[in-house]
């Protein structure tokens, strides 16, 4: 396959950015999207140009480090797939592909396609945990958990923190990310003691970071590589309201 890439290039956080055009030839349909970018970068390095910086690590869809907006869609058009798991067989020979970083004020560009997502860590710091120091836990079987609750909690807990939800949201909201953690812990007995304080602290931190509000467009769940359900946001709002009513 031969492709034309239009890639966002930006040398630093405060530098102006622009789209640059590159041709990539002899792309195999079995390549992953990032392997295709590797091929481009190898060529750029040898010709003395600056290769395209992008975040990636596990390349098996679980670490959440990769992420780019491909043809206008976070992680590309294939549903429930991270950028690293997207393969070139889903593109047409001769296609032009645009590649941009996540765009949201709380995710400033570091370089090219690399953005700073540390706002997510600060949301977790605000309360996305159960306070249980090592060594203080009771026997694992002392509290049975209904299988349905455990399964639902698991579904919410699979969030990989990639930030696609924010990139896709017209409001730049981090509601799906925040709600996923709140829901995961709200559904389990271990999460009950801190349930309301957690919801309040995490939502307040999300707002403080400058993420927008949720208006139920559902774009977040549509691009989420792990299919985190939209109803987690209802759970978050419910806990948040209860916390504020107290």
């Amino acid at each position: 396959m031969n492709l034309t890439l239009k890639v966002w290039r930006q040398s630093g956080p405060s530098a102006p950015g622009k789209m640059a055009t590159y041709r990539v030839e002899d792309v195999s349909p079995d390549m992953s999207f990032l392997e295709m970018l590797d091929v481009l970068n190898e060529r750029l390095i040898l010709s003395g140009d600056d290769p395209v910086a992008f975040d990636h690590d596990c390349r098996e869809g679980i670490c959440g480090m990769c992420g780019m907006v491909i043809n206008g869609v976070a992680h590309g058009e294939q549903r429930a797939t991270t950028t690293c798991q997207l393969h070139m067989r889903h593109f047409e020979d001769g296609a032009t592909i645009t590649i941009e970083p996540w765009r949201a004020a709380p995710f400033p560009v570091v370089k090219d396609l690399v953005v700073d997502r540390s706002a997510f860590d600060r949301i977790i710091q605000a309360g996305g945990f159960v306070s249980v120091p090592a060594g203080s836990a009771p026997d694992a079987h002392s509290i049975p958990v209904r299988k349905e609750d455990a399964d639902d909690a698991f579904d919410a807990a699979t969030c990989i923190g990639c930030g696609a939800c924010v990139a896709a949201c017209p409001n730049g909201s981090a509601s799906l990310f925040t709600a996923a953690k709140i829901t995961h812990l709200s559904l389990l007995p271990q999460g009950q003691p801190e349930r309301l304080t957690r919801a309040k602290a995490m939502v307040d931190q999300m707002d403080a970071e400058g993420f927008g509000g949720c208006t139920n467009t559902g774009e977040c769940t549509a691009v989420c590589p792990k299919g985190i359900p939209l109803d987690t946001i209802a759970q978050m709002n419910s806990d948040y309201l209860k916390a504020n009513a107290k």
Partner: protein
Amino acid sequence: MKYTEGPEIKDAKAPSGPIEERWEKRKFAAKLVNPANKRKLNVIVVGTGLAGGSAAATLGELGYNVKSFCYQDTPRRAHSIAAQGGINAAKNYRGDGDSIYRLFYDTVKGGDFRARESNVYRLAQVSVNIIDQAVAQGVPFAREYGGLLDTRSFGGAQVSRTFYARGQTGQQLLLGAYQALERQIAAGTVEMFTRHEMLDVIVADGRARGIIVRDMVTGEIERHVADAVVLASGGYGNVFFLSTNAKGCNTTAIWRAHERGAYFANPCYTQIHPTCIPVSGEYQSKLTLMSESLRNDGRVWVPLVGGDSRAPGDIPEDERDYYLERIYPAFGNLVPRDIASRAAKNVCDEGRGVGPGGLGVYLDFADAINRLGRDAVEKKYGNLFEMYERITGENPYEAPMRIYPAVHYTMGGLWVDYDLQSTIPGLFVIGEANFSDHGANRLGASALMQGLADGYFVLPTTLGDYLAAGPFGEVSEDAVAEAEIKVRTKIDRLLAVNGTRTPDSFHRELGKLMWDYCGMERTEESLRKALERIPELREEFWRDVKVSGTAEELNQVLEKAGRVADFFDLAELMCLDALIRTESCGGHFRAESQDADGEALRDDEHFAHVSAWEFSEDGPVLHKEALEYEYVKMTQRSYK
């Protein structure tokens, strides 16, 4: 490669007495640090996977002043996140005959009698606390309808002791540790440094007193001093270029500590995982594992005769060879990883491999789907099947998966004593970065167990014993400056070459060489070839590598070049270690040492020891630590 032999290591500091009392004894003997003094003690933890993340969080909870470092943009990315199958624990919730002693026994045997009994016993003891801790954190393990935890079987065991969270156990456990870590960051006990890469250890007055790091965004070289340094930087499987490790996994932290005096133990012990997705082309950048848990229900087979090009569904039952079930009737598809991997290689070498290039075997779920129904199979393995389809474009519900072994884990690592302390006082090494608990072969679902055992339970006790003598005062400026200059010099050298080949192209070539000559099967001839070729390639690297950009910016080419440079040096030591260990054991298979059935043949008379290598400019120095087995009798492993 020239090497010399130095004095034996006589004392690994394990307490004596009955094995079940040793850890209790050590804990009681360990000096305590009074809470007010903990705040005055600074600890650096490098790496935020299961071991590093849990250690930094726990040390923070105890009140130490902790700095945590990772090269990713957030600690939650560490590659422990990709572990799929599960975590072992001797809970015996099934009442199927499990016990701490049995987990200990299975692990020592699975490691092919090349691990320390005292360490492994402690690991089995602590395993039960890990599950309690994780459940209390809200880790959503799989449960049964009664609300209790579900378990499954894993390779090398005949009991069901593996706790799991669908195919994402590593992710859920890591997020548990990550959340505990973020809680401490909020509490102010841990200061987090993301996108920072450790490039050297500062050693002053015979103690590890800090690290030199590069801020990967600005390129700034920073000095961080402390009273102790903990390395939790993971394994070195990426020396093979293609492995199931994340792209960023590297040996730099432990290798540079090795250059500063930490012994490197058993570098040749690498684990080749039997169930990975086969290589599809030259451009391949990494390999993806399919969890070993698939072998619970999937059946491994190849056509009975070579050259059979029919589609798998068209090959009748009696023309298939379910070779693991045939050769190992007692364990069948659940034999340990090293055995399953070599068996796959053997059938492919016979020309019976399937798929492009003949480097693959089938992992077939047709029977499981018939027996349990598609829904049940989907519930258990759905996400793995999806991942397979995404990568290969083939649907495993309709046609069997194709799998092939790939490098997955490294049992070797920095030598540590029972306290997890390296040969540099004050430098502790935990998780995959150390060598201690898995011998020559790690059993499935034991990596998560070891990482968390080290981080939550073992290190916080033993490090306290070391720190009780601290704080250790000012660090000499000379030692810090010397380390900083060494780091800067290496970076400048890499940038100055300005050659014609990229770091990745060298890495690929080195990896291919290691896979061919020091991979699943090693011979004296292949290892000698590697030892001849590695220095040549390294010389070419330093003459012809091209690193674009500058040191004062985000520069992924420079990061990569530094890591590849260290892989060359490590690769050479691995091959030397493999060459002089003329026996086969676990993941180290020397073709010259096999029995009549082609099984690995150990040589306990000459090799029942740890090979710990000391770095020296004049060539490595070998120190042996004898391994003694008081409880588990050394026998030839049999899974038949």
